[in-house]
């Protein structure tokens, strides 16, 4: 028996493990390309310091990568263990990009990451450089396929429902791959990863400079991170805007919620810079608005209207009513008691089948749904406004602040005066954790904003879980908390230990502390 508690706990477990996994992904995406850039400079100039940079940042990369791999397996298992109905209902489409990801991308970066670490003395310089690039390309290709799968959850194209098999089936692989939602998400997500990688190198290098150690090493690392980070931060913002444009087309509910737009405004709508949204009263207080801005950004036109929450709910009511017809026809089709008229009626209403299924949360027999239930389901078809509103604004504000930091870092590294700007170096150190927060906020907006669906408009979250007991879920949640807390402590310990050791951890004898007795305290 699937109770609301099973659904809530399954969501909590998935959200917690997915957020946790994504603590390690962005750094892998970004740092892998930074390693490739550093090694390219080494191969082109032959300067040993660049090889040392590649090796040292590679060591930190490895500490992070290990947990990325560990927590990634959880994600693969969890669709089956906790979201069995989801896996059955959409596995025909959703499983394919995951399997192709394994074959095309995950094998590539996992096979070559081993040669990256162990092949320094066994491979020629050029071959090793090729390996480093293949690792970076592999991890980024992984992101392509994962985001194609995720993009389909947001905007389910290229598929249709079959009542014989009782599931969604693929009708066009091409549409799945070239889903605009997936494309926009991919570039936005990997750019965010590049920003994270750049901030990581920038911040730790700045710390060495503030401490007055390993100056040459730190300066060169800082410069590369500043340049790569500057380009990436710009692309995050531009492509984030592209992602926003995609949101407006496919998921108007997400946009209305994250903008706190209760009523449809005359086009072009204004952008709410600040407000205190109230989900109960369905209004905002203390609003600061920029006229026309939202309409222009979101629709790229001056006269396309963006629907507000009230209007979207009214539309949902209609779709739910159609959905009831579809659900009832489907039940007859499954029981093989349907006549041709029922079949025709199912075909006519099947686009709204998912909306009919929303009612399953309130009644097992949707034909008995009361107008109150329909109104309730329509209201719940819009995600809660306040969490969406705030997480989105924090993410955007952080994105712009990263851009400012990288722009200044790039400017002063072009002028070669950054090492004297201690305020800039401190800023880089203190900002180090923030890209992770921005990434997690972004995922919150994307996934919480998709509620109450797992597949937008197709499959409600409430119907997606496995038939497992509440006790099993508490047990597994406790297990994940235990292992993930322990692993995070160990990972952070090693990360800090090796960041403090710096390039001296390579044991070359060329870096700070390697001959001085002060080393002991650093360890």
């Amino acid at each position, binding site marked *: 028996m699937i109770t609301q508690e099973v659904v809530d706990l399954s969501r909590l477990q998935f959200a917690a493990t997915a957020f946790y996994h994504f603590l390690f992904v962005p750094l892998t995406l970004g740092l892998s390309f930074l390693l490739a850039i550093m090694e390219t400079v080494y191969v082109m100039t032959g300067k040993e310091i660049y090889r040392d940079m590649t090796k040292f940042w590679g060591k930190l990369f490895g500490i992070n990568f290990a947990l990325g791999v560990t927590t990634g397996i959880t994600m693969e298992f969890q669709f089956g263990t906790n979201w069995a109905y989801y896996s059955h209902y959409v596995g025909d489409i959703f499983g394919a990009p995951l399997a192709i990801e394994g074959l095309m991308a*995950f094998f590539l970066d996992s096979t070559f*990451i081993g040669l990256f670490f162990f092949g320094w003395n066994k491979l020629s310089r050029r071959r090793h450089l090729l390996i480093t690039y293949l690792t970076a390309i592999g991890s980024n290709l992984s992101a392509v396929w994962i985001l194609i799968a995720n993009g389909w959850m947001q905007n389910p194209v290229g598929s249709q429902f079959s009542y014989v098999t009782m599931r969604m089936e693929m009708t066009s692989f091409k549409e799945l791959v070239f889903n605009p939602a997936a494309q926009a998400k991919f570039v936005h997500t990997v750019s965010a990863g590049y920003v994270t990688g750049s901030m990581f190198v920038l911040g730790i290098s700045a710390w060495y400079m503030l401490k007055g150690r390993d100056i040459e090493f730190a300066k060169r690392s800082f410069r590369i991170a500043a340049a790569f980070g500057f380009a990436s931060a710009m692309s995050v913002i531009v492509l984030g805007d592209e992602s926003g444009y995609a949101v407006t087309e496919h998921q108007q509910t997400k946009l209305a919620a994250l903008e706190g737009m209760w009523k449809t405004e005359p086009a072009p709508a204004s952008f709410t810079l600040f407000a205190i949204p109230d989900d109960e009263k369905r209004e905002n207080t203390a609003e600061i608005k920029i006229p026309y801005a939202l309409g222009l950004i979101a629709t790229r036109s001056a006269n396309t209207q963006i629907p507000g929450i009230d209007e979207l709910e009214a539309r949902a009511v209609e779709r739910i009513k159609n959905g009831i017809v579809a659900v009832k026809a489907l039940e007859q089709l499954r029981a093989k008691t349907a006549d041709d008229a029922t079949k025709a009626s199912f075909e006519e209403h099947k686009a709204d089948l998912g909306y009919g299924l929303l009612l399953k949360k309130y009644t097992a027999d949707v034909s008995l749904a009361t107008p109150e239930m329909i109104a309730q389901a329509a209201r719940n078809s819009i995600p809660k406004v306040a969490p969406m509103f705030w997480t989105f604004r924090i993410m955007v504000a952080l994105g712009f602040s990263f851009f400012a930091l990288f722009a200044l870092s790039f400017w002063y590294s072009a002028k070669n005066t950054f090492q004297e700007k201690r305020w800039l170096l401190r800023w880089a150190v203190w900002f180090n954790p923030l890209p992770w927060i921005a990434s997690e906020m972004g995922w919150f907006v994307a996934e919480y904003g998709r509620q109450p669906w797992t597949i937008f408009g197709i499959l409600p979250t409430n119907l997606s879980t496995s038939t497992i007991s509440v006790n099993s879920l508490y047990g597994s949640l406790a297990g994940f908390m235990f292992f993930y807390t322990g*692993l995070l402590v160990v990972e952070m310990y090693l990360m800090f230990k090796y960041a403090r050791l710096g390039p001296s951890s390579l044991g070359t004898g060329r870096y700070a502390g390697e001959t001085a007795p002060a080393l002991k305290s650093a360890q």
Partner: protein
Amino acid sequence: MLDYETLKIIWWLLVGVLLLGFAVMDGHDMGVGTLLPFVGKNDVERRVVINTVGPHWDGNQVWFITAGCAIFAAWPLVYATAFSGFYWAMLVVLWALFFRPVGFDYRSKVADPRWRSAWDWGLFVGGSVPALIFGVAFVHLLQGVPFHFEDNLMPVYTGTFWGLLNPFALLAGVVSLSMLTFHGANYLTIRTEGDVQSRARTAALIFGTVMLVAFAAAGVWVSSGMPGYVITSVVDPGALPNPLDKTVEIQAGAWLGNFARHPLLWAVPGAGFAGGLPALLFAWVKKPVLAFVGSAVAELGVIGTAGVAMFPFIMPSSSDPRSSLTVWDSVSSHLTLEVMFWAALIFTPIVITYTGWAYKMMAGKVTNAYIESNDHSAY
């Protein structure tokens, strides 16, 4: 365009290939993990053992992940039913696997012997526990799993975790654990020298023998009238998949039916012995490369035996036999199978080629001297 029936059979074979790839590749480094605390008596020896698989374990693990994803994509109902039904078994495997990436990468980054010893045992758990549970879970497919479908095809499992641990299941666990450990011991014998090598060889002789005896015992068990499953309604292999559209009966000895109809299939369990026995002999006469090939063939025989005995069943239901999942009715749509088929056809040979190249680049013995001179970069 290939027809639906052909694609269904191809995907049964391809899942078999991926599982075999997992056993041959990830299997040997799981075996190495299982043996680690026993064949390495001091820190340098243990680092030797770990570094034989250091550059490769991560790529090898992808066989496991890809096999899982391929089951998701090609047999979504199997993926949904097995993973949610075997909830606790899956979580124990998952949590045991946690110890591998971090164990390999973190172990030698801190010098404290307690830290290193803890991760060594972590790698032992990460190698041995999944190997054991895979066998236990696999044999439950032979025995039938208590599950049924609701009208909307929601899978409902009605067994318990402890119910998994019956004597036959434990015997199968011994088969899979000893098989992967045998394979890992052969690999270690190739890549090491001196004391570690001679201990690895001893381990190969022990686990190879255990595997052959346990596999033979499991064969006797199945052929002495163990109940199997038979489809009793007419099957249209090209039909749209619906697992509730058939009738199934439980019959004693039914798992021998395919062998009786097609005696050539006896070659599959035969491969288990035809690979395993020579592998044992080659380990004995110190030809570890041939022993490694032999243990890989044995894996083909063991995994293949379960597959051909059950065909077309993948996951029979003991509590509601008509819900049983088969090659015909638990698969994805025609288009998905076709797309995935081309993806597998193109990428699997590419993967095998660059994996081979990676092994070639890192070939040679891992020695104590290598560890001592690469203290900062080796695992």
